[in-house]
């Protein structure tokens, strides 16, 4: 898949001490995005980040990839057809975000306009196997869509059952 190719190309990270702050290592992609309006800092870090890539299947389903020399930020937006979907996706992703520390690569707050964000740095790549990391990301995206649909179906059947009981009670008595 094209997603896999892009991930493989993008996850070529190396350790890089921060140029702005002494003796510290910061994910350059976060600094670049955070200080988007600060021209001074942008001048110093712009060259360390590459252009953003957006892979979009359609307006509603996209994947944003921002890369830099030592970190990559991957954000996904899932397909949501109606209000119920939006609600479910929101709660589902917040569930993950709260447990982001266990995932290690998950970002606690998704990037604006997206549902889920991952921040992968070179330390993560040294700990985890790169191919397996990419497999995990792709599986995650596929499973989340399936899960959201399942949850929606569950809700619909539950409400249908509850509504039928309620109506029966009203009609029966």
């Amino acid at each position, binding site marked *: 898949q094209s997603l896999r190719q892009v991930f493989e*190309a993008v996850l070529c990270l190396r350790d890089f001490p921060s*140029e702005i702050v002494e003796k510290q290592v910061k994910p350059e992609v976060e600094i670049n995005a955070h200080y988007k309006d600060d021209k001074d800092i942008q001048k110093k870090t712009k*060259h*360390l980040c590459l252009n953003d890539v957006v892979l979009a299947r359609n307006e509603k389903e996209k994947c944003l990839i921002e890369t830099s*020399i030592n970190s990559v930020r991957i954000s996904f937006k899932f397909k949501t057809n109606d209000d119920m979907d939006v609600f479910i996706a929101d709660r589902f992703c917040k569930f993950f975000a709260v447990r982001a520390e266990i995932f290690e690569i998950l970002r606690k707050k998704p990037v604006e306009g997206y549902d889920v964000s991952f921040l992968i740095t070179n330390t993560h790549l*040294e700990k985890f196997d*790169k191919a397996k990391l990419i497999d995990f990301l792709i599986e995650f995206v596929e499973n989340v869509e399936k899960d959201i649909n399942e949850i929606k179906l569950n809700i619909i059947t539950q409400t249908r059952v509850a509504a039928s009981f309620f109506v029966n009670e009203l009609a029966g008595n």
Partner: protein
Amino acid sequence: MVMGNDQNRAILDGCWSPVRNKFCFGTGSYKVYIGYVDPDNQWWVAELLCRKKFSSSVLSVQYHPSGNAIAAGSSDGTIRIYTSYIHEVDKDLKSPYSGPLADVNTRGDELFRIDANSWVESISFSPSGTFAMATAHNGNVVEFNIQGTEITANEEAIIWDKLPFRTGVVLDDNTFLAAGYDMRPTLFKREGGKWKFSKDYKKEGKDTEKRQSVVQSNLSMFERGKKAPESTKKVKVGHSVPIISVQRAAEKGLFYSVDSHGNFFAWPI
């Protein structure tokens, strides 16, 4: 070692001069320094190579085989070659090198600059001093030709469409070895003026008894009576993490490759 200057960022790469009387290093504070023994005071001194700064961290530095020039590549995408003759140390030196740039006697003159458009991860000069290869993050390898005092560059000497190279070493006038995020050392040979892909050093499942994985050795503990299965003796040869450095070995016909997990392999050329 005394560093009497306002250096406040990490040292990112260093290189000894081929004549071993001085060394240079590149820092995260956008500068390149040369260190040498001050003959008057007999202590190590580090001096700025030249006043002009790069606009980003210096990721790689390399000495020209003559000891008189330094090539530096940085994360702002530029590769610059400066002269580096230190009067106090080099004036009485007789080095066996004879080739381009042997009689340069200035310091800090910019001989050449090129913009590679992506972070320059490594530079390597050929042993004869006639050319250099620099690997950049966009997958291309830039070749510099040094003839006399003229330096020309071929920006797309090798266009590599797979994952970028992190390190490279020129083995002789016609062979170049590069390795990086593909986790496999790759050999290029020059034929008829153009560089062509020659060999990929792939993983081979050779039988060696150097290292047993922890799980296998624990398992064999429980199977004491049985014969150890052959698979416990095979060691995975090859890197599973990006290769950080490739070096010519002291023994002929070998080169070493190291990755960020500390795995160290020797390969035959």
